[in-house]
């Protein structure tokens, strides 16, 4: 069993798996169950000013599914906590007292003025919480009131509020970012300028999950109407990974700790966030889908992976893939691969053939007896066949060795690295910066 203990901006937890600020962390009952199940920390569901908000009393979630009704994406229109501030503070204090080893972060969202922040921060400090997370990400409801993503979409506001918070508390401050922007580095830079100890991302993505074709209304539908919600779950992971990587590899942001959020469902997802620069991860949808017990798989899986790699601390994984994230123009155009189909694993479904023949390069041949083989003369190694094949590892991409001749182009594979910036076909290679 590898050592999974985590120290994220000075906040210690038994493992790097935190529950994100969301319904699972709304009250003491849930959080106690989470800690008992093994979660390393929680970000308590966002507190606001009294009088507390009022939620809709119709459906708050919408979903999209994969095969066998596996939940792939979840959308919500729930707001921040709808309980009195003092009730939450009392429960936070009581739970933190009973679970001193687990991380207790409190998410906050109050109006964009310094006074409310000055008021609420000492009260949170008084609970013994380990830190605060500023919710600049919630994309629905609260944003209409000038909070949440309405702040997160304006870097100047992020910087201003972060500065107020840092000036009024000794607690570490995490700034939670919205993905509903064009360049995530801008809000991250603003948070850093404001003095944030870390950023967390991503919050949910503006979304309509589906349309009721009888009512002609978006879902979830409240009395015939629907409003956009915040999208999360496995489907958003690729978007989140990219945003985490964008921050992690930005020279100006290097060293800014990141708490990775967005579709983390398995230990593998978590490890990928860590590898792209996240110091820990936050989970919500997976817990909401399967319950708190999933953390046991995350713990055992990450531990086994670390043992198999000889990695002794979580920090050794953090950022390890960042040097390999680059821009397209740095990719080696001399690297040539070809698809290869393992005939022993192939079940002859022909999906690779349909995909390649109909939508790609006609690089897969189909025989009378349904044997599928790659035509190297046509294969550009696009990987679509690998992606649509239902059998893992049945189709692989095999790199050609330098010196071999690519049957598609008739050219010899070169050993040296050459990217688009030096390619003769690139008229913009020397464009003014």
């Amino acid at each position, binding site marked *: 069993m590898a050592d999974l203990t985590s120290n994220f901006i000075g906040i210690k937890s038994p493992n790097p798996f935190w529950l994100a600020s969301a319904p699972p962390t709304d009250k003491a009952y849930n959080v106690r169950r989470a800690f008992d199940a093994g979660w390393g920390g929680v970000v308590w569901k966002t507190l606001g000013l009294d009088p507390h908000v009022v939620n809709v009393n119709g459906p708050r979630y919408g979903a999209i599914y994969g*095969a*066998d*009704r596996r939940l792939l994406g979840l959308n919500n229109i729930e707001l921040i906590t709808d309980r009195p501030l003092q009730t939450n503070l009392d429960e936070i204090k009581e739970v933190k007292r009973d679970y001193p080893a687990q991380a207790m972060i409190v998410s906050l969202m109050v109006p964009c003025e310094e006074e409310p922040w000055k008021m609420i921060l000492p009260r949170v400090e008084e609970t013994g919480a380990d830190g605060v997370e500023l919710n600049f990400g919630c994309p629905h409801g609260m944003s209409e009131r000038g909070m949440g993503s309405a702040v997160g979409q304006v870097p100047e506001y992020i910087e201003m509020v972060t500065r107020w918070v840092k000036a009024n508390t000794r607690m570490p401050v995490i700034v939670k970012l919205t993905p509903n922007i064009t360049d995530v580095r801008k809000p991250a830079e603003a948070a850093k300028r404001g003095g944030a100890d870390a950023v967390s991302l991503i919050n949910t993505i503006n979304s309509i999950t589906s349309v009721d074709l009888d009512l002609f209304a978006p879902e979830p539908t409240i009395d015939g109407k629907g409003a956009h919600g915040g999208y999360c779950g496995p489907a958003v992971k690729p978007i989140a990974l990219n945003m985490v990587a964008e921050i992690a590899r930005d020279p100006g942001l290097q060293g800014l700790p990141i708490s990775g959020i967005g579709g983390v469902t398995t230990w593998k997802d978590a490890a990928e966030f860590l590898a792209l620069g996240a110091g820990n991860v936050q989970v919500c949808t997976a817990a909401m889908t399967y319950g708190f017990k999933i953390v046991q798989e995350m713990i055992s899986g990450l531990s086994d992976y670390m043992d198999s790699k000889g990695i002794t601390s979580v920090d050794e994984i953090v950022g390890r893939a960042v040097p390999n994230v680059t821009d397209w123009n740095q990719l080696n155009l001399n690297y040539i691969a070809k698809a290869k189909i393992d005939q022993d694993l192939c*079940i*002859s*479904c*022909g*999906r690779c*053939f*349909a995909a390649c*023949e109909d939508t790609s390069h006609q690089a897969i041949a*189909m025989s009378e007896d*349904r044997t599928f083989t790659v035509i190297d003369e046509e294969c550009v190694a696009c990987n679509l066949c690998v992606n649509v094949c*239902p*059998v893992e590892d049945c189709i692989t991409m095999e790199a050609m060795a330098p010196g071999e001749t690519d049957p598609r182009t008739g050219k010899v594979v070169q050993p040296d690295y050459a990217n688009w910036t030096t390619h003769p076909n690139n008229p913009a290679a020397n464009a003014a910066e």
Partner: protein
Amino acid sequence: MSSDVFAEGIKPGRLDQESYEAQFSDLHPPLDAHEALVAADRCYFCHDAPCITACPTDIDIPLFIRQIATGTPDAAAKTILSQNIMGGMCARVCPTETLCEEACVRELAEGKPVLIGQLQRYATDHLQEQGIHPFERGAATGKKVAVVGAGPAGLSAAHRLAMMGHDVVVHDARPKPGGLNEYGIAAYKTPDGFAQGEVDWLLKIGGITLQHDAKLGQGITLQSLRDGYDAVFLGIGLGGVNALGAEGEDKGGVTDAVDFIADLRQASDFATVPIGRDVVVIGGGMTAVDAAVQAKLLGALNVTLVYRRGRDRMNASAFEQDLAASKGVRIVTHAVPKAVHGNGAVREIEFEYVDEDMNGTGQTLRLAADQVFKAIGQTLEGDDLPELDGRKIKVDGTGRTSLDGVWAGGDCASGGDDLTVTAVAEGRDAAMDMHGVLVG
């Protein structure tokens, strides 16, 4: 257990009433909507799918399963029925384990095919239970076609001909239409009057008249039909039963399995169907298994199915063999009947063991038997038929016989397996060829 199971002889009412209902309930209960969605999700939507190739009627299986998965089972049913108008019956009786489901790539991948047969039933039931008939007749052609035999081949041909605008008269020897669907399939495969319900539904196309108690040579002749109609389709099945060739086979209690199965299907109350205490079924096909299993379900104490070759050579699929075994049928292989013993009625039947080449070994087996069912194959019956190929009517790929204006399909015709689904395909294809000839 009722004490009547121990009574010797052929007797009705061996079980109590509730037992009959339980014994003869649906072999595969229908999938509910949730089960259908779970099953449909497993389909990979293969390219040029092997399951389609394996289906004698070429149903576009991946398409209909995708239609189920996307919440449109009636569209799925139309996909099925446009290729196979008896898709509902085929979903119940097809040996899917040797056809579509054997070819399913998930059978290769995981040993668990997509439940194609049950999904087909889900879709066709969904449509038919609403009484929807999704096909319409084309413009009337003024042509009249005679179909002989209201079984799967004949009704399939009739439906397609009616759809093309021809007027069709279907002649059948039995009082009810359906052929083997009505008279020749185990009751537990098609309970609740499904066969008649399907025929009623099929006839909604219009333009088809049924003529009962009309058999070639009795009331009608092939020549009279050729004279009176623009074309003739023969789907007369195999009316005769092969003899055992064993000494004493005329003794009481020795009957044809097909008659037993037909009587059972027509019985309004299974308790009235008499069955022996010690039953021996001779044969290795679906009919043999249907008879053996149903004998057991009726309360026979000992049922033995005896086949002359190994299990791998049996026409009954492995699934059917396992079904028989699971119901308590003993399967004896490599044995041929030599003599039926008894004084008037059968008491014992004697077999000789044979090797793989059917050479006698000299070793014998005697089984106690008060009832023996012969299920060693059926034969074509009738005079003045078109030219034969072996023991069946010779046809080409589109069902044309040696006689002008006469087509044939189903079990009576050469080529193809003796399966419901094959008969439906042959009837359909012959109808399309007839249509081409009729409208010239």
